[in-house]
């Protein structure tokens, strides 16, 4: 499986090669088709550019993300959707050569500003990763870690409450109730991913970013996680990067299609999947490449 989170030389090269190829195709993808604005935005991204060293990975992307909506980002490998996702809570800071330009507003504050403290930001914009990555600690400690470092619980009873509540909302409580002290890594893959979601919920974020959360899971586990995402949208804004178009169609209200670092088209999910406006989107949806 192609892991987009790992920014390798190879990956960057691939992006560049595709650029050249596309110039030959002479299809204009620098303008975004569709409506990038929504009525009640939670996050507003304006003219975001991302560079890996000299190479450009995200080219002038602007998009609004609405309150309590599920936004799916789709596109072929190396299209920059994960990179864009990681801008939203500044996880790209961890990559040395990565530079982000532009503006991303969360509640009227530009989070890309240098002085932004990423710690509270990441508490507000949580992230679930492609591969389940529970800490090598007990299930309880996995969920309790976030509340602990952010000082969300004043005492043990409150902490217990947060942990049980989060596990409940992640639909995991019934399965792990009797073994909260066994290591998180002892769970099955699907359970691990739901544990990671519970861990993220426990910090009470406003936005949850999911980077291909089901790509490492089997179909049954995937169905469960999808069901969970559907339920979570009541309380959270969710941005999900996915490889599987059907998944985007199932869980999201809006879909954004990325291609070679450009946001090609964005719109209501049904529209994108039934009547795509851009030629590239159509090719991708109909499976001509990807």
């Amino acid at each position: 499986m192609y892991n987009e989170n790992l920014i390798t030389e190879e990956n960057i090269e691939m992006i560049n090669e595709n650029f050249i190829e596309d110039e030959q195709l002479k299809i204009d993808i620098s303008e975004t088709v569709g409506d990038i604005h929504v009525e009640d935005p939670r996050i507003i991204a304006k003219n975001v550019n991302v560079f890996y060293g000299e190479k450009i990975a995200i080219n002038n992307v602007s998009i609004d993300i609405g309150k309590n909506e599920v936004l799916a980002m789709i596109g072929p490998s190396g299209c920059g959707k994960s990179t864009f996702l990681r801008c939203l809570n500044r996880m790209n800071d961890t990559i040395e050569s990565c530079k982000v330009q532009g503006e991303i507003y969360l509640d009227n504050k530009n989070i890309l500003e240098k002085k932004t403290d990423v710690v509270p930001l990441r508490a507000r914009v949580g992230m679930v990763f492609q591969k389940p990555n529970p800490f090598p600690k007990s299930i309880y400690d996995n969920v309790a870690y976030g509340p602990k470092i952010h000082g969300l619980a004043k005492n043990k009873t409150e902490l217990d409450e947060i942990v049980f509540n989060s596990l409940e909302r992640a639909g995991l409580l019934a399965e792990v109730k009797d073994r909260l002290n066994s290591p998180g890594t002892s769970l099955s893959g699907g359970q691990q991913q739901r544990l990671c979601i519970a861990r993220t919920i426990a910090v009470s974020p406003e936005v949850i970013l999911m980077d291909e959360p089901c790509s490492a899971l089997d179909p049954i586990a995937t169905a469960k996680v999808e069901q969970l995402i559907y339920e979570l949208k009541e309380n959270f804004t969710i941005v999900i990067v996915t490889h599987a178009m059907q998944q985007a169609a199932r869980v999201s209200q809006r879909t954004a299609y990325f291609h070679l670092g450009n946001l090609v088209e964005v719109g209501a999910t049904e529209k994108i999947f039934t009547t795509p406006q851009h030629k590239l989107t159509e090719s991708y949806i109909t499976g001509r490449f990807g």
Partner: protein
Amino acid sequence: MNNLKSRQAKEKRFQLYGIFSILIALSLLIILFVSIVSQGYTAFKETRIQLPINFNEEILDPNNTKDWNIVKKANFNKLVKNAVDEIIPGVEGRGNKRKLYKLISSSAEYKLRDLVEENIEIIGTKEKIWVLADDDVDMLIKGHIKRDLPESERRIDNQELQWIAILESKKIIKKFFNKTLFTKGDSAESEQSGILGALIGSLFALTITLVLSFPIGIATAVYLEEFAPKNNKFIDFVEVNINNLAAIPSIIFGLLGLAIFLNFFGMPRSAPLVGGLVLSLMTLPTIIISSRAALKSVPPSIKEGALGLGASNVQAVFQHVVPVALPGMFTGTIIGMAQALGESAPLLIIGMVAFIVDIPQTMTDPATALPIQIYLWADTPERGFVERTSAAIMVLLVFLVFMNSLAVYLRKKYEKDIN
């Protein structure tokens, strides 16, 4: 076709060279172990002679004071001589008598002293006590001095042989487990010398080494691996220095210790404190390099998960990455400690090479270390010391094998935990 045949023969020959090389390396290893074990295994027994000691009041306490301060000045050696006379009576002449008494180790009178000090009431009683035999007798009993050699080539002459035969016939000469080896410090007499002093010296020095190099090494590794800015001249310089230190001959560290710790800071010579300081500087690179490898092998997803929850970089590293890497760091530290335990050259330079009888009590007492004790004994030609050198080496190797297996065990376990 002929060509092919010769090529195949060449192939066979080449492969044989390889097998041959490995066999040479392994057989050298075996020869080394066999020679040391065969020289040294007998040192774990010591020969003792049972003497019927009469704790004579006349000699020990003629005024019946029962006061140790008075009794301790008495002639305890007389008790030993009397007892020897009792088992082998009728030896005439001063020379012969001296030869007879020399069968018993000079430590016998100290043993009697200790017994009386322990229980002053023993005065006036008679007891059968096992005392150490002289090292030559010990060697004879263990078969290192052959009885069938011509008299002139033996360190034990015919008369002494006769006396020993008497002792043997009375069944009052016997081999026991060698307690002296593990409970005494160095001595000029091989039968009275032990490795305890050197062991304590090594222990003190290694404690210092561990206390200093483990935290500093890990702090350095964590900084360089997790926090250090990339492409920074200063950091590059630090890394170059660490790699260099790893390759500098150990004796140079001894010179550093001599010039800086002893002469500049005026620390005591021969002290385990200084030894530990020098050894910790030497083991630092080992610990740093292996700790960095351990940190590197922690899957980045763990750190990412913590960062994604809003943990700060420091929190993510210390609460998630370091705990996972810790067993790997322990492995590196144990290997570093094992190196330090076997190291001798720098300790020679800072003066931990001296004839030290007393067991060191503090970190600043003069002391030796186990490898240094081996070096000192190896320099002594007496057969009794050759045996003890080999035994000391065996003890050292047991420690090293134990430490290294612990390291291997931890590494295996760690690798399993990570995957």
